[in-house]
């Protein structure tokens, strides 16, 4: 009975080896000789740590990659769907009940976001809430996108709500619906770090040229 299993095990080993050989190393550890610390679980690297990356463009790319750990977290990506239905949970489940975005990204008559979501979390009912609860427009979809794609999208006024880079910084740093990501209520895992840290990362990214990570780069 042992022999028939040998082949699959070998195949798995070969695949694992192949993946190991071709896997791109994290950009942040290989630029300008810089060696960034490991981010703690649920944390972000401190924005000032990126100052050790001497090359401006490399620093900018590394800053965005770090910020993308927030953008790609389920607390954020769940409401940036690439379809008409929001997601929920850590596994991007389809929103229950099956609501749709509607013409203004706030639902349709009968099932608007504000039919259930209030301006604050409801601990007893477990319904999450924050001011102006709504979906990101379809042009701002993050589901299925990689950090480079999100970066290019975020810089493009046609796909970022007509915002300037300064307004992008402000949105990330101060928007009250964005803030919900770190105060999600009812035992939900918050986005990494803090909104203040994200705001600083994005501000430093803009200040360093708003460069986008290379294709395939991951934080």
């Amino acid at each position, binding site marked *: 009975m042992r022999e028939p299993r040998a082949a699959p095990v070998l195949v798995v080993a070969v695949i694992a080896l192949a993946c190991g050989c071709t896997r791109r190393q994290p950009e942040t550890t290989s630029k300008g000789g810089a060696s960034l610390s490991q981010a703690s679980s649920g944390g972000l690297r401190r924005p000032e740590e990126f100052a050790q990356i001497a090359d401006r463009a490399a620093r900018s790319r590394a800053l965005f990659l770090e910020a993308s750990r927030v953008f790609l977290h389920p607390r954020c990506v769940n409401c940036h769907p690439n379809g008409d239905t929001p997601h929920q949970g850590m596994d991007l489940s389809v929103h229950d009940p*099956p*609501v*749709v975005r509607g013409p203004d990204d706030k639902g*349709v008559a*009968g*099932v608007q976001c504000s*039919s*259930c979501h209030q301006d604050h979390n409801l601990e007893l*009912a477990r319904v999450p809430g924050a001011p102006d609860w709504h979906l990101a427009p379809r042009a701002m979809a993050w589901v299925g996108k990689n950090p480079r794609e999100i970066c290019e999208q975020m810089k493009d006024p046609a796909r970022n709500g007509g915002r300037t880079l300064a307004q992008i910084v402000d949105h990330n740093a101060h928007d009250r619906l964005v803030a919900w990501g770190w105060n999600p209520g009812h035992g939900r895992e918050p986005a990494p770090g803090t909104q203040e840290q994200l705001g600083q990362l994005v501000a430093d990214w803009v200040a360093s040229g708003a460069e986008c990570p290379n294709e395939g780069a991951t934080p």
Partner: protein
Amino acid sequence: MIMLKVNGEARELDVDPEMPLLWVLRDVLGLTGTKYGCGQAQCGACTVHLDGEVVRSCVTPVRRAAGRAVTTIEGLSPDGSHPLQRAWCDLAVPQCGFCQAGQIMTAAALLASNPKPRDADIERCLAGNICRCGTYTRIRAAVKRAAQISEE
């Protein structure tokens, strides 16, 4: 004190601003047509209108209704003659009936914004209203019948 209108009547309420609107309607004002189902906005039985828009009253703090107009199933029409109520009777929609006030209030918001809804519109709009008796096909037929009644 919280001032609001309920079914066209001005009300002044001395209640905790965080009290769910459903508690105010049922326990303070005695309007028991609106039902308590799940208490977490998952079933739709407690649906009422706030300035014409649908809200789940079980999760809506009454302070959100301050200065605004609440409409419950009791206020949909003075004599039960709203096209939806007539269609509901014509087609004998309810089985146990517990969810029906919520279904009708949600459908009323749909018809107010879309007088001739297609099947897909109805299903999308009522997706958050659960009927444990499974009267969905009659509900859909009755919404379309109500649209016809309104047109006649």
